[in-house]
C-alpha cells in the first residue's frame, strides 16, 4: 500500500472517493431523508458517529478476529453503535427521531460503513482508519447537505424550517417527494462527473 499523508486520507472522502458521488454507496438514506436540511444533517451526523466509532473499534480489534467470522463481527460492532445512536436520538432529540423513523436502525446496512470497515479499517492502523472515517463522514454529510438544501428550498421554499422564498413562490411539491430525490441526485452526479472530467482534461 502506498504511504499517504493524513490529509490525503481525509480529503479523498470529500471529493475523489466521495461515498455518494463517487462510490455511490448509501443511496437509500440519501434519497429517503433529504427532504429537509435538518433531517439530512441528523442522518449525516448519526451515520458519521457510527462510521467513526466502528472504524476505530474494528481497526483496534482486527488482529483478534479470524478472517472467516470478520463480517459477522463487524456487523455486530456496527449494529451496536447504530442502536446507541437510535436510543440517543429517541431520548434527546425526539422530533428528529420521529422524522427519521426506520432509517436510523437501517444505518446498520448502510454500505458506506461496512464498506470502509472491509476496505480500510481492517487493513490499516487505528489512526489512519479514524481519519479515513472522518473524511468519508464529511463527504457524506456534505452530499446530504447539498441535496437536502436544494430539495427543501425548491420543495417548500424554506431552509432549516425558515421561509426564505416569499409567498410568490409556489413550492415544487415533487422536490420533497421521492421523485425529487432521484432527479436532484442525478443532476448532482452529472455535475460532479463533468467537473471531474474538466479537471482531468487539464
Amino acid at each position, binding site marked *: 500500500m502506498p504511504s499517504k499523508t493524513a490529509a490525503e486520507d481525509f480529503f479523498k472522502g470529500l471529493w475523489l472517493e466521495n461515498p455518494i458521488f463517487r462510490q455511490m454507496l448509501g443511496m437509500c438514506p440519501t434519497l429517503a431523508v433529504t427532504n429537509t436540511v435538518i433531517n439530512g444533517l441528523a442522518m449525516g451526523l448519526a451515520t458519521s458517529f457510527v462510521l467513526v466509532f466502528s472504524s476505530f473499534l474494528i481497526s483496534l480489534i482486527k488482529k*483478534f478476529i479470524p478472517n472467516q*467470522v470478520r463480517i459477522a463481527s463487524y456487523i*455486530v460492532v456496527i449494529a451496536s453503535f447504530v*442502536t446507541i445512536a437510535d436510543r440517543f436520538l429517541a*431520548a434527546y432529540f*425526539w422530533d428528529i427521531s420521529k422524522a427519521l423513523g426506520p432509517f436510523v436502525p437501517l444505518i446498520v446496512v448502510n454500505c458506506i460503513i461496512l464498506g470502509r470497515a472491509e476496505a480500510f479499517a481492517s487493513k490499516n492502523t487505528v489512526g489512519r482508519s479514524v481519519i479515513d472515517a472522518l473524511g468519508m463522514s464529511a463527504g457524506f454529510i456534505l452530499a446530504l447537505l447539498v441535496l437536502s438544501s436544494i430539495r427543501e428550498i425548491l420543495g*417548500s421554499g424554506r431552509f432549516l424550517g425558515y421561509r426564505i422564498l416569499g409567498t410568490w413562490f409556489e413550492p415544487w*411539491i415533487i422536490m420533497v417527494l421521492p421523485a425529487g430525490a432521484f432527479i436532484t441526485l442525478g443532476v448532482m452526479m452529472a455535475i460532479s462527473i463533468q467537473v471531474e472530467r474538466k479537471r482531468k482534461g487539464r
Partner: protein
Amino acid sequence: MSLSSRMVAVLTLVGFLSGGFLATVGHLTRERIALNKKMEVERAILAVVPGASAGRIIHEEKDFTVYAGQDKDGQLAGFAVYAAGTGFQDKIVLMLGLDVSLSRINSLTILEQKETPGLGAKITDETSFLVYWEGKDFGKPLSLRKPPAASRESLSASEVNTITGATISSQAVLQIVNSARERIINLNKEGKLNPEGKDAK
C-alpha cells in the same frame, strides 16, 4: 487453539460485550424515551382541552384512549380522545378535544401521519384544515364539504372543508373522528366515561 474454537470464542465474546453494552445504554435511556412519549400525548391533551393542566386516562383500548382533562383545581375541563385509523399511506393518529358535555368539538390535532407531502399532509395544517373542526357539533356524525366552502361561516355546524387534492386523506380523518364519536357515545351510554370512575372503583 484450533481455528474453529477461536471463531466460536471470538464471536461469543463480541456478542457478549455488545449485548452487555447495549443493555446498559437501553437502561440509561429507557426512562427518558418513555417520558418523551408521555409528554407528547400530554402536550396534545393540553392543546385540545382549553384550560386543562393535567390529563388522566379514563378509558383505554387498542388505538383508542379517552382522557379527562382537568384544570388546576381538579375540575373536569373537557375530554381528549386519542384515536387512530388508516390514512392514504399509513396510519393517522389524532387527538380530538371535546367539551365537558360531549356535545361540541373544541379542536383537533394530528399526532402522526405519513400522507403525501404538500397534499395529504395538509391535514396537519391549522389554517387549511384543522381550523374547520373547531366548535363543530358532536351530536351527529360529521360530514365533508366538497368542493370546499369559501368561508368558515358558510359551513353548517356538522360540516368541515375537504382539502383540495387530498380527498382521501380528508375522508380518512373524518372516518377516524366519526368512528371515535360512535364509540364515545356508546361508552357514555354505558356510563363508562365518568371521570371519577377510576377512583370509585
